[in-house]
């Protein structure tokens, strides 16, 4: 079966730095995979490559059957690859609901003229989108919080809102970049069950970057370990945990697991 997301030989250099080299991944449909590695390993850079923010020097990337190389980020997103950002990038001056609704724009059918004339078709679509957006907020545990400005939400809720916004794209594959960063232990527990629920409920395939090893080892059925831009290990949690290369990479870094 065609993987939901496939990458092979993906590489990018920033000047002399090989930020990602020869990356390979086949994320199966419905898979929940993890991507770990010490600080500066190239994890976020890889997300930027997958989502079209950077264009790889070499390699192929496919979303299902679709070749993603050279496509604009907006086109990649609209075709079903959504992400969250490590350094939260919400639309801060917009309400939580509007943040989610922005992601619905790519799928809108009524155009500018219908918008200005407020045709019945436009109105119906607007109503349907609003209801859907509220449902996404509920799905991540932000029910009834739609009117609040994104910037006024507590940190953990902002991370949840990023997930709701990504879900509103109705993606096939979801990339989560350190969703637990800055969360307290209780919020992390909530996030853990949320990630599982999302995968099971919405037919999503998820690739998760996370420094919280407890979380990754617990929810991910497969883990890829990156160090200095290269894959140094891959396998189940149990396998990578005892891999000597992984142990060395982490012991050699200040932020040991």
């Amino acid at each position, binding site marked *: 079966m065609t993987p939901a997301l496939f990458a092979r030989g993906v590489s990018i250099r920033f000047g002399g730095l090989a930020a990602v080299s020869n990356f390979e991944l086949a994320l199966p449909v419905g898979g929940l995979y993890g991507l770990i590695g010490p600080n500066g390993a190239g994890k976020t850079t890889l997300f930027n490559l997958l989502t079209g923010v950077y264009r790889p020097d070499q390699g192929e990337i496919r979303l299902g059957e679709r070749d993603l190389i050279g496509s604009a980020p907006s086109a990649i997103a609209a075709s079903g690859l959504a*992400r969250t950002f490590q350094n939260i*990038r919400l639309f801060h001056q917009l309400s939580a609901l509007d943040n989610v609704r922005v992601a619905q724009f790519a799928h809108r059918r009524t155009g500018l003229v219908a918008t200005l004339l407020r*045709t019945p078709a436009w109105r119906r679509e607007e109503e349907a989108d609003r209801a859907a957006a509220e449902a996404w907020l509920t799905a991540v545990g932000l029910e009834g919080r739609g009117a609040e400005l994104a910037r006024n939400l507590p940190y953990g809720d902002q991370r949840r809102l990023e997930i709701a916004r990504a879900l509103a794209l109705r993606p096939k594959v979801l990339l989560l970049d350190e969703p637990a960063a800055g969360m307290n232990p209780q919020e992390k527990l909530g996030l853990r069950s949320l990630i599982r629920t999302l995968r099971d409920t919405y037919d999503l395939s998820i690739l998760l970057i996370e420094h919280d090893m407890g979380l990754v080892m617990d929810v991910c059925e497969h883990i890829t370990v990156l160090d200095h831009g290269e894959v140094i290990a891959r396998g189940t949690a149990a396998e990578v945990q005892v891999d000597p290369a992984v142990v060395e990479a982490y012991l050699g870094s200040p932020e040991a697991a």
Partner: protein
Amino acid sequence: MRAILPWVAVLGFAMLAQVAVGPVVGHYWTKILMDVGIAVLLAVSLNIVNGFTGQFSIGHAGFMAVGGYTAGILTYYGGAALFDLPPGAVAPGIAGHLWFALSTLVGGVVAAVAGVVVGLPSLRLRGDYLAIVTLGFGEIMRVLLTRTEDVIGSAEELATAPWTTQVVSTGGSLGFTGLPFYTNLFWTWLWTGIAILVAYRLKESSTGRAMLSVREDEVASGAMGVRTTDVKVIAFAMAALFAGIAGGLFAHEIGTTLNPAELGFQKSFEIVIMVVLGGMGSVTGAALAATILTIVPELLREFSEYRMIVYAALLVVVMLVRPTGLLGHREIWHAWRRS
């Protein structure tokens, strides 16, 4: 039905301004109210670019010039040919006014096309390129317009002048004098009302939210599937359209001359100040600031020499005290509710 009602209200409002307000307030205030309408039209339209999408355009007067000169050529030379009148004569009856309305609209469309041509290269990029390009565009327009031929004043001369000569006979730095006075409270407030309605409906729609998301975070906007360049170009073209229409109204207003110096950087700067002062992204804020900044200098005529100094100082004070402008991103009724 609910959707049509606001358009009817705009039309009714414009008619009311013409038949009920104009005669009551007299010539002096009629002129001021037309100036206010044109200023509101300019500020509300610039706000679609600067306020909604967060791109910084500082050449709005350039698009005003494109629209004003285009409409002027159409009413002055085109009107003469069409109605068989001496150049610059007001065509009698409804026909003249319909020709004027069409001319302003064409002026707006030409300005919108100019907007796309000028804006597209820099709107594809991120950052402040648009400011530089629009500034340059405004200045180029101004200089080009000072180089045109004298206005053809007599019917005999006009009869022998080919249209290629006519379109470049717009008076150079002296300005396009002798344009017929078609602009009245009805046309001013009709276009202004339309612009306000369009801007507001845009803001409260998915297209408008896409524009706001570009302002907030362009990278995140693209990552959420928004084609950011398209959205910026649409905003820019709409702003240029209304600026062009404002130019047409300005050109045919009594007591104004359409000349290059009037439509230079200073004018663009005034419109930017209205948007910043009103609150970036607030439709009613832009309208309010435009109204205040048009009426107050009028009442303080003796200080009008210092106007630009006061504007500049005002801008600095707003930036320091209330960087989001009077209303911030909100509309006037929100501010009402909060306070």
